[in-house]
């Protein structure tokens, strides 16, 4: 199944469907669920391959450790839950029993960032990328749309070792056609520009593109990179871009500490110091509400991205 550009689809839907395709092709794929299959969309897999599907109830730590046990027997374990629970409730199990033994456990949580907008803060995983990034041996992904989800899911299945692949609960627009290739660890240059580099991931990629469009009306050319893999970070694509633009704005549906902004700041600080503005949650928990309104309230809307770009461009003048 592929998805038409311009349509709006939650990436968890694509995950559920792609998982079935994957299960068809690869008999080693087993799926673990923690009582929210209707929401994570693994119910599709469960229906199709009941013998390779295990619902362990509301018990995410157990789920993670069972998945590790299955991987120890040569399986490729997919773990479904919400980002808050995958990264925090079961954090130590991920670290000690998945990452440390370097097992083929693919953790694919829905409800990344504030995409469960209405559910409120307890269900909005806005710290998970940073948490996963600091666990040695972990590969951390967030696809920008349904087509990217499917491709990256297949790539994750082939990848040696643990993967964290973050999904959205709410709909995001399709920006990729079915032909685009995705390689784990290689960012995608979506739009060329010379004044500022916008590095975004997940649901914020489409916002970054909107911001770049808006900026072009003011004769500012912004380069846009989809950094779907936050770890290992694609240093080359950043360097190539920054040597040209000399300033960066990172955009993520995540806390500005520790996540994409942190990763890019670390990398540039060590390799090519230029101003970096980070757009995301500023050390605050969000709340219930409509997705777009929340982006607006917490400083992550298209408007804020464009303002951030303008500021960044100003900064670079000052520092020179």
């Amino acid at each position, binding site marked *: 199944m592929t998805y038409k550009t311009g349509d709006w689809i939650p990436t968890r839907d694509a995950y559920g469907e792609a998982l079935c395709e994957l299960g068809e092709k690869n008999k080693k794929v087993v799926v673990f669920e923690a009582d929210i299959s209707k929401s994570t969309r693994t119910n599709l897999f469960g229906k199709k391959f009941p013998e390779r599907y295990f619902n362990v109830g509301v018990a995410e730590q157990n789920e993670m450790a069972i998945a590790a046990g299955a991987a120890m027997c040569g399986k490729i374990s997919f773990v479904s839950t919400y980002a808050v629970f995958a990264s*925090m409730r079961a954090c130590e199990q991920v670290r000690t029993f998945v990452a440390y033994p370097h097992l083929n456990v693919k953790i694919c949580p829905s409800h990344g960032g504030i995409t469960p907008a209405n559910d409120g803060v307890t269900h909005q995983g806005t710290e998970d990328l940073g948490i996963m990034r600091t666990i040695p*041996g972990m590969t951390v992904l967030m696809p920008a749309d349904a087509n990217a989800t499917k491709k990256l899911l297949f790539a994750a299945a082939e990848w040696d070792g643990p993967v964290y692949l973050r999904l959205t609960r709410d709909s995001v627009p399709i920006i990729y056609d079915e032909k685009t290739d995705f390689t784990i660890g290689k960012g995608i240059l979506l739009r060329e520009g010379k004044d500022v580099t916008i590095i975004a991931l997940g649901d914020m990629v489409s916002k970054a593109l909107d911001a770049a469009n808006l900026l072009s009306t003011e004769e500012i050319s912004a380069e846009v990179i989809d950094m779907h893999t936050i770890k290992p970070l694609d240093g080359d694509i950043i360097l190539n871009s920054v040597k040209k633009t000399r300033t960066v704005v990172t955009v993520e549906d995540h806390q*500005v500490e*520790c996540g994409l902004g*942190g990763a890019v700041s670390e990398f540039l*600080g060590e390799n090519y110091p*230029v101003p970096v*503005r*980070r757009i995301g*949650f500023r050390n605050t928990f969000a709340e219930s509400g409509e997705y777009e309104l929340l982006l607006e309230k917490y400083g992550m809307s298209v408007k804020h991205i464009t303002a951030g770009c303008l500021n960044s461009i100003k900064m670079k003048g000052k520092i020179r």
Partner: protein
Amino acid sequence: MQTASMRTAYGEALVEAGRENKNIVVLEADLSKATKTSLFAKAFPERFFNIGIAEQNMMSMAAGFATCGKVPFATALAVFASMRALEQVRTSVCIGNLNVKIGAPYGGLATAENGPTHQCISDINMMRGLPNMTVLAPSDAVSCKACVHWAVKHKGPVYIRILRDGEPVLYEKKEDVNIENGNRLHEGNDMAIICNGFTSHMALQAAEELTKEGMHVTVHDIFCIKPIAADVILDIAQKCKRIITVEEHNIYGGLGSAVAEVISQSRPVPLKIMGVNDYFSDSGSHKDLLERAGLTVENIIRQVKDFVE
């Protein structure tokens, strides 16, 4: 250098604070002899609660205590405080901005021979990502005590990363310790080292060695990694033009990352992050493990020199 045990300092500070403040309660997960909360248990048995090996329960219980005006110190090895109970810290404690203090001994590689399952090079990151959390990492027994007392006065969640035994003593008395801004251990304009925890005394030693060779290096000991003293760091960046961060933590997400985030925003200067290079370590003596990670006086000196060129 004289040495003292940080976890013992933690236990003693809890007793001191408990004497002054009757609202302080201590929660423990079956490791009181290791974490030294046993000292508090002895002094104030009625305010000591051993929850058994159940760190998640402990964190949420602490949250319950806090809603009733208590100042709970929940204590667990850094690896369990930061990872086994992470979601409880977030949901039960941080979202409500509750007055829970988390004491986390055996941070970094300090559990040494116990191996990677018990070592913890990710806790600073885990805690730093949580809104409302204050993250402290003292560098010796004296600053550890200062952190405990500071945490009692601070309203809101605080995570204190503590090491184990035999840490060199850097400070004379706890009043000397500036928790919010950190302490300047050495002055110089050629380069800056920003450090914390067990690496601070190494950085100081490295700076002293380098002075003999005519290089003048600023060494700044940071206790509070979140919120980090951005002004202080920017001043250092302005003055020294180059910064090396040193920490007993993963190079991703810790002190280095916090400094990178600050300087990249307003004063991008070249940075080098020294720490554990994103790997699971091994069983071995603490000294051996630090050596493998490149966290030695010699290597700091080498890195400073390389960085100049």
